[in-house]
């Protein structure tokens, strides 16, 4: 429950809309129940009047019937608009909340989640929280308020009838769903687990198809999938059975309520405490008010799934930042010389990648870092970017990195990370992430220095070509050079380039390195590469590992 509360707290600003949706929902249920109540009372009174030949003012009730019919219909329309509007507002609040929460966790913490897991949390779980208000909170609150209001309304006419109705509504709206929730929780968990297993088994079978063919294990794998599919379907069937029980239970408790009201009402009528038409009114009112309880079992059934989604989201959002900012940050230094002294680093649960590493980079130095795979070159770059916590001392302009906020530090540093990300947008916007106001001249000079000019000229839409997951696919080498152009456009003093030329032929590689070093005259450059060409253009080569 705590996870759900956290999610609800995160969208505090939308509480007004959410409450409005619930109140309109209650009003709609009231209009509908009153419509049936007035109709029943009207008919019974007309019948009594017909038999006793006593005159009956039918103008007021028939006008009320028309008014209620219209307000119910229009009210329902407005309710839908308001609740859906509130749900979407809440969802957009949730997205921005999560984005800002995740920013300090990336990349050190987020990389612990597989990209499939992260993607399903961020897409599926967030989207499924859309239903949190619409399908869970709103029906539950509307139901509870309506039950209370309906009981009070009936109590005004007859207390025994109110007691009968109250119990029937509580049983069908709260007790029955609570009892069924235990059943459905078990099958719900089973089906979620089987669905997850099925997904990974199918994905294994489809992507690892070649290996299975060569091992002669294709049919064996397919049969395993069939067995798992049967298990999944059987737990889904059990869930459906619980859902059907909820519907059946509602039918029985409604009938029990009507039976009870009929008997207590008949007794009241025979004692003269209530008129006959009033009994019909209360009967039809009660039948209609069950609509309020009808939404509650479904809402309760969805609760465990929503809780799980909320848990998965808050687990991400609540993680402690792996690289915390200092409480009282130091001001940015004027000098930008870097010094690593006795720096050590180990990934959790692994042997150390770096131990006792030291390196001085005076302002304006050009240094290449080489070494075999896994020797800690990229880790060193990430430590400098404050993506990883370190042991030992790293200073910029004499100030320890731990005493600066990451945001401040990163205004000094520009970098091409090991696996740069290409955003789903145009090449131009990908290049100007750091500097959206860059002029065309600035952009074309960065594009030229990153040796992207010919490639971009060959694209029909040039700089406006859409790239990334949904756009035109770029090769890893092109992606890296887009990142180089992006880094060059940034006004920084320190440049960290991690394998900027991987995927390039030797000739273009030399061109790129030459242009980049010319452009970065006077700036500090830390170049990570395992290639000979990179070693040739720097002042100092440091081998690591």
């Amino acid at each position, binding site marked *: 429950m705590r996870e759900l509360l956290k999610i609800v707290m995160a969208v505090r600003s939308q509480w007004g809309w959410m409450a409005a949706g619930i109140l309109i929902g209650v009003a709609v249920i009231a209009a509908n129940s009153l419509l049936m109540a007035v109709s029943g009372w009207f008919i019974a009174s007309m019948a009594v009047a017909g038999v006793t030949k006593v005159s009956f003012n039918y103008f007021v009730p028939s006008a009320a019937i028309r008014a209620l019919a219209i307000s119910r219909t229009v009210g329902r329309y407005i309710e839908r608009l308001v609740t859906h509007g509130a749900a979407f507002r809440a969802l957009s609040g949730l997205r921005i909340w999560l984005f800002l929460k995740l920013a300090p966790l990336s990349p050190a913490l987020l990389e612990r989640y597989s990209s499939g897991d992260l993607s399903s949390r961020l897409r599926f779980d967030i989207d499924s929280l859309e239903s949190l208000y619409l399908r869970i909170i709103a029906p539950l609150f509307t139901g509870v308020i309506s039950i209370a209001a309906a009981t009070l309304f009936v109590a005004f006419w007859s207390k025994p009838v109110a007691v009968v109705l109250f119990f029937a509504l509580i049983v069908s709206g709260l007790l029955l769903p609570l009892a069924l929730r235990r059943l459905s929780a078990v099958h719900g968990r089973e089906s979620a687990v089987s669905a997850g297993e099925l997904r990974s088994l199918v994905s294994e079978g489809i992507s690892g198809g070649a290996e299975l063919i060569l091992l002669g294990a294709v049919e064996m794998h397919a049969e395993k999938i069939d067995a798992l599919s049967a298990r999944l379907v059987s737990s889904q069937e059990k869930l459906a059975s619980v859902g059907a029980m909820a519907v059946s239970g509602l039918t029985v408790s409604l009938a029990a309520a009507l039976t009870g009201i009929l008997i207590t009402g*008949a007794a009241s009528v025979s004692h003269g405490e209530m008129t006959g038409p009033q009994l019909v009114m209360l009967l039809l009112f009660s039948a209609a008010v069950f609509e309020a309880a009808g939404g509650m079992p479904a809402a309760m059934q969805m609760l465990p799934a929503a809780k799980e989604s909320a848990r998965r989201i808050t687990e991400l959002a609540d993680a402690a930042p792996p690289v915390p900012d200092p409480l009282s940050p130091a001001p940015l230094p004027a000098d930008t010389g870097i010094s690593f002294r006795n720096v050590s680093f180990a990934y959790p649960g692994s042997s150390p990648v770096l131990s006792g590493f030291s390196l001085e980079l005076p302002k304006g130095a050009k240094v290449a870092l080489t070494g075999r795979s896994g020797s800690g070159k990229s880790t060193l770059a990430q430590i400098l970017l404050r993506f990883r916590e370190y042991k030992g001392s790293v200073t910029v302009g004499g100030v320890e990195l731990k005493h600066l906020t990451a945001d401040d530090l990163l205004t000094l540093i520009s970098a091409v990370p090991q696996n740069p990300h290409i955003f789903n947008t145009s090449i131009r916007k990908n290049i100007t992430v750091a500097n959206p106001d860059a002029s065309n001249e600035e952009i074309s000079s960065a594009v030229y220095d990153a040796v992207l000019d010919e490639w971009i000229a060959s694209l029909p839409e040039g700089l406006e070509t859409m790239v990334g*997951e949904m756009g035109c696919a770029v090769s890893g080498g092109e992606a890296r050079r887009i990142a180089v152009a992006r880094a060059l456009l940034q006004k920084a003093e320190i440049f960290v380039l991690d394998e900027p030329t991987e*995927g390039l032929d030797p000739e273009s590689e030399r061109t790129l390195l030459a242009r980049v070093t010319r452009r970065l005259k006077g700036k500090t450059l830390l170049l990570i590469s395992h290639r000979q060409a990179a070693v040739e253009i720097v002042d100092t080569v440091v081998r690591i590992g």
Partner: protein
Amino acid sequence: MNTNPLYSDNRGEKWLFSEALALRRNLIISITLAVLGGVLTIIQAKVLASACYLIIIKHSDIRLIFPLAGWVLCIACIRSTLSWFAEMYAAAASSEMKIKVRSRLYRSIISASPLTRRMGTAPLVEAVSQGVDSLDPYISRFLPNLALAAVLPLLCLLFVLPVEWRAGLVLLFSAPFIPLFMILIGKGAEELNRKQWVRLSIMSGHLFDLIRGLPDLKICSAVKREAASVVRVSEEYRISTMSVLRVAFLSAFTLEFFTTVGTAVVAVIIGFRLLNGELELADGLFILIAAPEFYLPLRTLGLSYHSRMQGIAAAEQIAPLLFQENPEIHASGTLPVPAGGLIIAYEKVTFRYPSGRGGIVGADFVLPSGTITALVGESGSGKSTVAWLLLGLASPEAGRVLVNGTDLRDIDTVDWRSRIAWIPQTPFFFCGSIRDNLIIGLTAVDDDSIRSALDSAAALSFVESQPGGLDCLLGDRGAGLSGGELRRLAIARVFLRGADLIILDEPTAGLDRQSELLVCKSLKNLSFGRTVLVISHREETAGFADRLLRFIDGRVQEVSISEEYGNA
């Protein structure tokens, strides 16, 4: 989205309906039970109305009311049982369909060559898992509700018309407006709905894209700026969705409008007939209680419209995959594979994908026996195509792949595949003992051979240190062993199978130094007398190879390791 020529626009629903026809027995039972339940509801209304009549008009003694009240409860119990069984029969129909379709769909997907797939792995996995589940509501909800909407209102009319034909006529004439308006509005909403799904995936894609790019945004000091764009995109989505919903809700509005107004008009008509003494209260009240029941199946149908949309959307994904052409990957040749070491030569081999991305152009190189050759290139550079062609999953467009001088096309595919092995980053292991996993697909292998294979793969010591040794049970996908250990087990499997050509995908990725060395050691052992091809996307991870081939945009360059890497 749909480019399959075999598949026309509304095939999705047609196919789904034909699947449902095969399940008609359970569906008909389900519908019959639900109709019986509907009849009981009408009878229950009659009983309730009579009880009120007795109390109000006849001032009957309460003891006369008891049996009627008992009947109300009794009928409700029978109704609820019937409705439970109706739901279960519908669920059974849908379960049967899901199991059948999933099994067929998966087999159809894997029988097609990965090279001719038009979709990535992720959407295919979605189709087999979530997609098949989405067919459920169409079968278990929409179809029964459709039948009930056709039958139950008519049944209800049969009871109402003889009693009070005016009210019956109001019901009769208001009912057709409901489906009519819903269809009119629904058509527009359907189109808007589709667009909306696209927008939703763009929005969730946008957030995911930014989160994956967070390190880059931090480097660019652009986190706050992009946060504003998250808000902007979500707001745009809300505004566009609400404009769609305003229309979509109109159909619900129409439905509610006719139901409510119909009920209200019926109430007023009955009232005046009662006032004039032309109708008994028992009948009047019965009609008033039955009126909502008359509209209920139509409203339920309206609500299950979403189930239909969902089912059709999934069916449109699934049907083309089920009916796709599976071109014979390539006709198998008849020649046996030459015995002993294999020398593979690519002669000006070209293979391009329909999408234009990836593929290889005029590739010319040799993979000698007894060496480890590394094939390095960025993703999409064509290196996997080389492997696929070797596995015989496709034939080159131009040029030849030669095996000891014989064209691969002329070689018997089954024989060829028994001589090659493929080790991906996460090799395939099933739940079972280490022994069973090693001898999968083989018959009668003694433990000594297994031990010697494990020894050659530098895997014997860790296997023997496991509880039970060879009988130690592996979890799914080898859970319990490290990545390096699993790859060495897979290499041991190759020793056992006696394959002569081994293709490995990123054998050292994600390993620490110690396990990397062990994997390299077992690879060296493996390369004696065998042809080993390692594909990798980073040059530096292929440092242990004897030869390095670099792939850039589908073209191959042989790299002299000593020149490029100098002292490195």
